[in-house]
């Protein structure tokens, strides 16, 4: 089948195939995807934190972070929470199904600036997805970084993603602090909301970068917590999510002030967005 496609059309997705589907939680699924164009797949390069627009033709397009690291390029991995029309449709996909993909988009993490420093990941629920890509990238380049601590919380043990690789994270040199909102039978890790655990852990802001992602309410209280611990605005990095359409800085939807989350983000430091917190 020949495609009638023009060159250099940023709206035109590449065709891709779902290779594997993993159930993370009751409403989060992970897709492992490869581009159909083998050469393009082999040459595909991206920064941790960059995103892709997944197309299910007939339903639409939606944005997800590429949560596999650039150091592992057999496939591109996306984790999708079922919340709306398009994610519902993505959850129906099986291995072998064809989708469209526009990637990589967005800025990604400036991990070069984090080299030699201590790292604090703070993730809540599906918000762990964008942190995973950087976390694995750092594990794969472990010598470049100091202490790596990750606080990861979810409502219940059943709502934690990537449980199957927690051991790999730990053996890779990550101090992993897991928490759930309330007591559950058999749960041996921490209990409490992420901001509470943060203040209990009280990591020193000295030479440390905090990378935060989670639901807006968690971000809000984590920001308070980090400021209390003495983190400077530029030491706090978050990756934002907004409703996106074009993904290429044109359609005008995903702005926070004059910044477009799709091209100027999704990764921002707190200094860049703090005047606009009403619109997060």
């Amino acid at each position, binding site marked *: 089948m020949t495609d009638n496609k023009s060159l250099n059309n940023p709206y*035109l997705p590449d065709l891709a195939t779902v290779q594997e589907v993993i159930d993370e939680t009751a409403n989060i699924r992970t897709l492992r995807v490869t581009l159909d164009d083998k050469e393009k797949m082999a040459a595909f390069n991206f920064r941790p934190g960059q995103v892709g627009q997944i197309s299910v033709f007939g339903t639409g397009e939606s944005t997800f972070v590429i949560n596999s690291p650039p150091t592992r390029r057999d496939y591109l991995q996306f984790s999708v929470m079922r919340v709306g029309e398009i994610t519902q449709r993505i959850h129906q996909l099986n291995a*072998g199904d*064809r989708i469209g993909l526009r990637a990589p988009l967005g800025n990604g993490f400036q991990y070069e600036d984090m080299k030699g420093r201590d790292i604090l990941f703070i993730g809540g629920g599906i918000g762990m997805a964008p942190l995973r890509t950087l976390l694995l990238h750092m594990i794969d380049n472990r010598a470049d970084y100091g202490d790596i601590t990750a606080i990861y919380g979810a409502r219940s043990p059943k709502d934690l993603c990537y449980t199957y690789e927690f051991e790999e994270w730990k053996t890779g040199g990550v101090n992993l602090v897991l928490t759930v909102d309330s007591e559950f039978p058999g749960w041996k890790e921490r209990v409490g909301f992420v901001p509470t655990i943060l203040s209990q852990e009280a990591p020193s802001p000295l030479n440390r970068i905090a990378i935060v992602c989670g639901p807006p309410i968690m971000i809000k209280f984590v920001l308070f917590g980090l400021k209390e611990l003495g983190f400077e605005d530029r030491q706090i990095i978050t990756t934002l999510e907004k409703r996106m359409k074009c993904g*290429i800085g044109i359609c*005008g939807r995903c702005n926070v002030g004059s910044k477009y989350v799709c091209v100027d983000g999704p990764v921002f430091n707190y200094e860049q967005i703090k005047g606009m917190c009403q619109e997060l």
Partner: protein
Amino acid sequence: MAGKIFIALDRLRSTLDKLCSKIDLLAPASSQGNKTGPTAFMPYRSGVVPVLDRQTTLPLKKILLPQAETLLRYEYCKDPQDPLKAALSLDDRSEVRPTLVFGARPCDLKALSTFDRVFTSGPYKDPYYIERRKNTLFATLVCREADGACFCSSVGSGPADMEGSDFRITGIEGGFVVENLTEKAPDLFDSLGEAPTQDQQSEAGRIIEDVSQYRIGTLDLRGNEEAFRKRFEDNEYWQKMAAQCLSCGICTFVCPTCYCFTITDESDNLRGERLRSWDSCMFYHYTLEASGHNPRPTKLNRYRNRVGHKFSYIPEKYDGLLGCSGCGRCIRNCPVSIDIRQAAGQLKENVCDRQ
């Protein structure tokens, strides 16, 4: 570049009849076919009554950014041997024909200077817009029809501003002088009429000079980026400015510089199209996320975003250029008489602009 002709009023339609056999022609007209009712740029063919004595109700943006446009077509082809397998093909071809817009106004063209930056200056370029823009010529009227809602001089333009125009149309006694301004189609009009007489030329020259002196709108709305940032969290200010707002989409749909769009798949079973269509930041659904979270849930947030986009965000990105052409359509058409000159003009504590 010297091409100049005179079109007598009573020969306007016959001239346009000839012109539309040379190139696709769009001219301001009413869908009712007479001089009443709302006007827009419509395909001109013999019999259409051009309405050149007032600004069109709708701007010309749909010529370059149609209200709904196909970005691509997709088709699933089932494998007859194995119905579980389907081949998927995409097609993004589109056809654009050379077009002349006759009777645009400086405010229409001013808006295109904003479009040009948004759609063509990157980091990603919009191929659909670029193709249309490349194929469209503009013959622009020297505007003498400003009303109380107009404020083109407040945004760095003016009623004789010909930036972006390929031809200038000057209304004089008994007809129009049309002159070529660019290299794109210098002889397009040449065979359509006589050269203007010396008197007609000097009359047109006088009018252009006069109109160039007009100041339409007393405020200068440029340079408000810093003032907007300071106002951003002043909820009382925005509450006052947006209290009456009905959250309808009129101001954005009649705006020549509002370009924000949505992208949707419209499917007919195994095939369908991906459409881009006008959207409005005034709508609740515009920023509503699938989770139910909405970063701009109230009209206060949404109106602030509209003003900010035009008078702060766009200028920040594009060297001070505003996202507003001063055409006044949002003011004229607002059902509750919200006047954007107030919200933008008082950012720096100025009073409302009323010429």
